[in-house]
């Protein structure tokens, strides 16, 4: 079998290990997601009886869809609407607060600037889950739990967005443009609205991306702040569906129309918006997460 020419693909041991590990990782990351998306089309009996990656049919999907959406007077639809309200409101508020703040921290010098920066960094590094119970205690005091306003206000606090904006403007704000605009008689507010904001489009998208993902998939905060089931968001709603129907527990059947396929479809609804955004905006993660961190 010895070949005098160089083979087009030399498979030595090292390369074999690299590809084997990468392939193993493809299975680990890919199989659960693929299974979930396919399982949304299958019936309860098919989930148990057929091979894991078989595809169901359109009729089954429609039945499942109907069971899920009509259950409890279209409850899941209102949960999805709530999720949308919290996310849109929270993202808008976080942009409204963090873009001007990041700009001010980058473009001007004033007493207390360093303090605000340090507190922002600490708030950003502290996991948001650490303050959920303190925030609950506070909202309880203010009477703001169980309200749209409360959820949106909490979600609008996004120190990471301030930091990203600060880093963006401190590296990309052209000093010359600012100075000549100033000489042309633009006042400080106009400098922000006419010069900085048009430049800020990429950072607005980046902050909106991270802020949306955080708010859309927030379970802990919604679970603690909301006790009225009309106000639940989708991640909390998903768990309520499962615990009221016992769909995952393999216990004796009941007549609640929520079985495994309905749960799978609900889970797909929870992840779909983020999944779609991820597919178009993967590069955001790269440019955002370590931005401002010194090179390793």
């Amino acid at each position: 079998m010895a070949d005098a020419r160089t083979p087009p693909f030399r498979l030595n041991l090292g390369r074999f290990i690299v590809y084997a590990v990468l392939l193993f990782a493809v299975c680990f990351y890919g199989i659960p997601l693929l299974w979930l998306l396919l399982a949304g089309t299958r019936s309860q009996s098919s989930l148990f009886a057929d091979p894991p990656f078989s595809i169901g049919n359109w009729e089954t999907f429609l039945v499942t869809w109907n069971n899920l959406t009509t259950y409890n007077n279209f409850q899941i639809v209102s949960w999805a609407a709530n999720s949308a309200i919290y996310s849109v409101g929270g993202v808008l508020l976080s942009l409204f607060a963090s873009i001007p703040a990041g700009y001010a921290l980058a473009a001007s010098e004033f007493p207390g600037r360093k303090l605000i920066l340090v507190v922002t960094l600490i708030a950003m590094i502290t996991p948001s889950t650490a303050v959920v119970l303190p925030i609950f205690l506070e909202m309880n005091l203010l009477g703001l739990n169980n309200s749209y306003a409360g959820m949106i206000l909490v979600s609008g606090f996004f120190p990471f967005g301030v930091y990203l904006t600060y880093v963006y403007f401190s590296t990309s704000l052209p000093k010359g443009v600012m100075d000549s605009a100033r000489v042309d008689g633009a006042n400080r507010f106009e400098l922000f609205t006419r010069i900085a904001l048009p430049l800020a489009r990429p950072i607005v998208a980046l902050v909106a991306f991270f802020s949306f993902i955080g708010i859309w998939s927030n379970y802990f905060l919604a679970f603690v702040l909301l006790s009225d089931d009309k106000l639940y968001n989708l991640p909390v709603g998903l768990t309520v569906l499962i615990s009221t129907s016992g769909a995952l527990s393999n216990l004796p059947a009941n007549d609640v129309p929520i079985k495994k396929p309905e749960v799978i479809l609900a889970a797909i609804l929870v992840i779909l918006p983020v999944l779609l955004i991820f597919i178009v905006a993967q590069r955001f993660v790269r440019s955002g997460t370590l931005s401002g961190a010194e090179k390793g």
Partner: protein
Amino acid sequence: MSSIADTASPTVPRERVRAAKRKGQRDTRMAYLLLLPYIVLLIMFGVFPVAYAFGLSFVDTIENAFYGLANYEFVFNDFRVPTAAINVLWFVVIWVAMTMVGVATLSLMLDSVGRRTATTLRTIYFLPGAVTSSAVVVLWLFMLDPGVSPFQGLLHAAGWTYSIDVISGIGLAGVFALMAYFSASGGWIVVFGGALSSLPSEVLEAARVDGANRFQLATRIKLPMIWRSLVLMGILSFAAGLQLFVEPQLMQLAGPQSAQNDWSLNQMAFQYAFRMGDFGASAALSTMLVGTSIIIALVIVFATRFYKID
């Protein structure tokens, strides 16, 4: 501004000083105005809750009286708290180890294969990041149920028939680490993909000329160059892991026999407030948890200089 530019002559120094001062004040006022919405939110949801929980932790919230350190004493004497602390530590150790080894290995390997292959694979690793909070628990409860799981061959081979066998076989800390790793690691692989591709090519080229093979290139050259960022990832994961709540809290979805309502420290703080109505004890435990996070954050900000503050 233009007035200052015009007053270059040394004959009106006082005017100039005054004008500069006015300009400085106007700048400062404008900066505060732009910062105002954020500062309100920062105080409301950053500073105040932490301070309030701290204050509340010294109050007997049932009798409404100063309580000294009694809430802390109560928390430390609750036999479930040390158990929960050990549980969480186990989880954090497993998860951080998985994350550091997994992310470093996969990132370095992806950096050594063809660009198009790497991009495709990186996207596959990244997409599970969309599966968060309750959805990741639900998905993995399916994955660990030998009745329906696509991994059922593997689970059966291990001798597990029901999900409860699988969960006790892997161990709860391992199960939660698996869920957290599945969803959180892909984003880091994308981040390190970027970091690796921006390493100075002269250095890599020089190593190659000196006869380094791919393995040596990865372990002796690239790894030390991304080491600091890897450590940062480890610390951030450690801090996030200490706050574990969602994964154990949702184990009850698999049925009452799987419920774990006091497995983690944050769950204990939740139990105090919601099951026992003891906000003081909840505040005491929350204060300690937030305090730990803040100390870690201070270390990152002041001791490592990872983040640029000027």
